């Protein structure tokens, strides 16, 4: 399943980059995230609770960041597993400095899902994942605003 989209942040590219690369921030942003820990250079471990239609489950997984070119781009690899199935995804993030304290984020990725989330949830998975990403990015932007206000 392919995912992709764009989002414009109200902040300079370096600030956005710093936020995205902070696990503590990520944990508060992505809906349902229960924990995120750094376990190594560019490796994180965490748990996230996902609701997809009738299916509710906790996924435990790892996130790897590779091909990192701060503050421009990176590749994210996610592997998660839970009682309701598994998912495996790989995605690329590009940050484009639009000037005027605006940053355009472009993301593309591909996700494989299996188990109950695939067999029963696939029809809703696309919508749910888009919503989760949108909510997460909105929250990040909010934090950006708050920090901007303080700074």
């Amino acid at each position, binding site marked *: 399943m392919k995912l992709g989209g764009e989002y414009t942040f109200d902040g300079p590219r370096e600030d956005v980059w710093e936020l995205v690369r902070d696990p503590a921030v990520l944990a508060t942003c992505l809906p349902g995230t229960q924990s995120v820990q750094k376990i190594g250079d560019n490796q994180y471990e965490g748990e996230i609770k996902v609701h997809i239609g009738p299916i509710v489950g906790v996924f435990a997984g790892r996130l790897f960041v590779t091909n990192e070119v701060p503050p421009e781009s990176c590749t994210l690899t996610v592997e998660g597993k839970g009682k309701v199935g*598994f998912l495996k995804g790989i995605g690329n993030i590009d940050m484009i400095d639009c000037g005027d304290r605006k940053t355009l984020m472009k993301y593309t990725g591909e996700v*494989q899902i299996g188990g109950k989330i695939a*067999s029963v949830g696939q*029809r809703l998975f696309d919508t749910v994942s888009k919503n989760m990403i949108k909510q997460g990015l909105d929250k990040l932007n909010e934090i950006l605003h708050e920090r901007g206000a303080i700074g």
Partner: protein
Amino acid sequence: MTTKFIGKRVKRNEDPRLLTGQAQFVDDVEIPGMLHAAFLRSDYAHARLLSIDVSEARKRAGVVAVFTAEDMGDDWQPGPPLVSPPPTVKDVIFHSRRQVPLVKDKVRHAGEAIAVVIAESRYIAEDAVEDILVEFEPLEAVIDLEKGLEAGSPLVHDDLESNLAAHLFQKKGDYEAAREKADLVIARRIVVDRGAAAAMENRGIVTDWDKKSQHLTVWDTTQAPIPIRNGLVARLGLSEHKVRVIAPFIGGGFGPKMMMFYPEEMLIPWVSMKLNRPIKWIEDRRENFYATTQERGQIHDVEIALSKDGHILGLKDIFLHDTGAYDPYGLTTPLNTQCHVMGPYDIKNFTSEVSVVFTNKTLVTPVRGAGRPQGIYIIERLLDIAARELGIDLIAIRKRNLIPPDAFPYEHEIIDQAFAPLVLDSGNYWPVMEKALEMVGYDQFIEYEQPRLRAEGKYVGIGVIPFLESTGVGPYEGARVTVEASGKINVATGIGTQGQGHFTSFAQIVAEQLGVAVCDVRIVTGDTAEFHWGTGTFASRGAVVAGNAIHASASIVRQKVLKLASKILKTPEEELELEDGLVRVIDIPHKSISLGELALLANPLRGAVQPGTEPGLEATAYFGPQYGATAFGTHAMILEIDPETMMLEIKRYITVEDCGTVLNPLILEGQIHGGVSMGIGNAYYEKLHFDENGQLLNASFADYLIPSATELPRIEVGHVETQSPLNELGAKGVGEAGTLPVPALFAQAIENALNNRDLEILETPLSPNRLYELLRPNEEKSR
């Protein structure tokens, strides 16, 4: 032959019980102390099992036991092969790989069972399944049939050189020579995809092991209770008389319940004996989508050679058949395809080559039709294309090629599922087609209605598809008929019943012989304690094979009744008749004796009998046909397509069946109605979507659409009777007939309705969405 009961529209004996909830299904069985099973099934389609930790599950309150493959020790063995490959075909390649009770080393399809939890309730068992930790090494899945055969493909079975499960070549005549002489050769790739049988009742098993009497009782939703008993006896080391398998009322079989052994079918009785407790397992719908067998996936590269007047000179079909992760059912399904791809047509030159492929998908075994719908789809699509290219009418090209009535018995020559060259026993095809054309008003529609409706901007089309079906195959069935002291008749036969109306049609056969009311004949099916010889309900054979065994037994009982009554009434047998539960002297109706009294007299308590006398009015007989009886039919349909949404409305649906002697038209029509509705699903709604990793993406009825009342038309059924010479009743099977031609009929009628020369449908199942996609390139072209 004038009949009193056979051929009559008798209401079903079983319906009052079914309609008032008094019929026993497997899930109705409750035994004190019964435990419940739930399975841990793989999320992955292909993965190595690295480790499994059930310790947390075992600790959960209410959990009695958890078993993995390792816990089974030496009792872990793959299931027995159900059907061996045909020994009669030369150079056949067949690699037998059978399903396992629980995965030991490698998962081969999503939903394969890894562990079973036994608990005080299903609720607890399901929770405990989630406590189990499994470590997998995911492997690349084999999904696409062609890629699966490429060098370097991942292997479903590591010990084989490739994913080729079987290879089979059959021919008659000389196709290449016929091709040389042809005016037209059409070559196409035609793809048939997979569907589910989706019986209303999922599978289920209840087992009760009585340690003191060393007796095992198993209630099982199987179409084949006797082979299940025999298999359990062999595996569990028990005496045949210590294992009773009961297949009670079952909410639909459709083939997958003929598969044996399912892993659960062997495992649950084994666990019951281990724990010395009754156990129940009822499959849920999601499990059914993964763990119950499916069918239809084939890719055909096919070629037909014709003369310019539309005579078929030859046919060549090279195809791939998806068998899923294992192949316990041998080659039954692809053999049926090979036997049906020539349709009801007289084709002298034929070549067919099938490669069966292992994939990381659920197992494939016959589903109502069992390879036949694919064959029918292919030949009928080719004839539609040929008719178009040659400028011949769709009906005329078929009529021209039908096997003529004087050609029977027709040597088809191709080896069929019974491992012998198929012989078509009897038939008279054109009158059946003609009747369907009359019923649907073909000429009237083509000449007047269609032009008028098209002028109104409506997309209306007509389709007419003839088909044959090999039915009523051997080897044999048996029955025991007994006149009881009450005057009622008890009949026991070995096959199981899943809604076919056996309790009525079989009763009619007996009533005809013994002159009793149909409701006074009690039929027992699917209980090995009542009758323990036989094979099962499959291949449209119940009425033909078990029906004739019952007829044979009842005929013997009739002779016994007449002999005894003659002695008691002091009247020659020829002067007696069996009517209203009595044996009467024809000319002196008040001089009579009831069957019940005769039954008592036939079982004396004191006194002497002639040496060699058998007690009671009872007989057991068997029937095994020399080969299967071949039925014929034609379906016709008028439909209208909404050009925006591609939704269909079926305006008329006609079926004309020639299944030999009609035992009960009411039951026959019910079978046809059910078959057509399944065919409509196969044609336009039902398709299992597997992704490239072997994940089934529509494993629920929210996403996998079964036609409902709103999609189903009123189905008009006509009959023509050409009796089979192979059995006393003259019967042929009809259980699958309703399903077989429907995808071909849809393709033809849709093309006719859309009247778009660029549209050539070469796949099934279709869907509104898929039809829209097929039309899109055409729309772009015309712009």
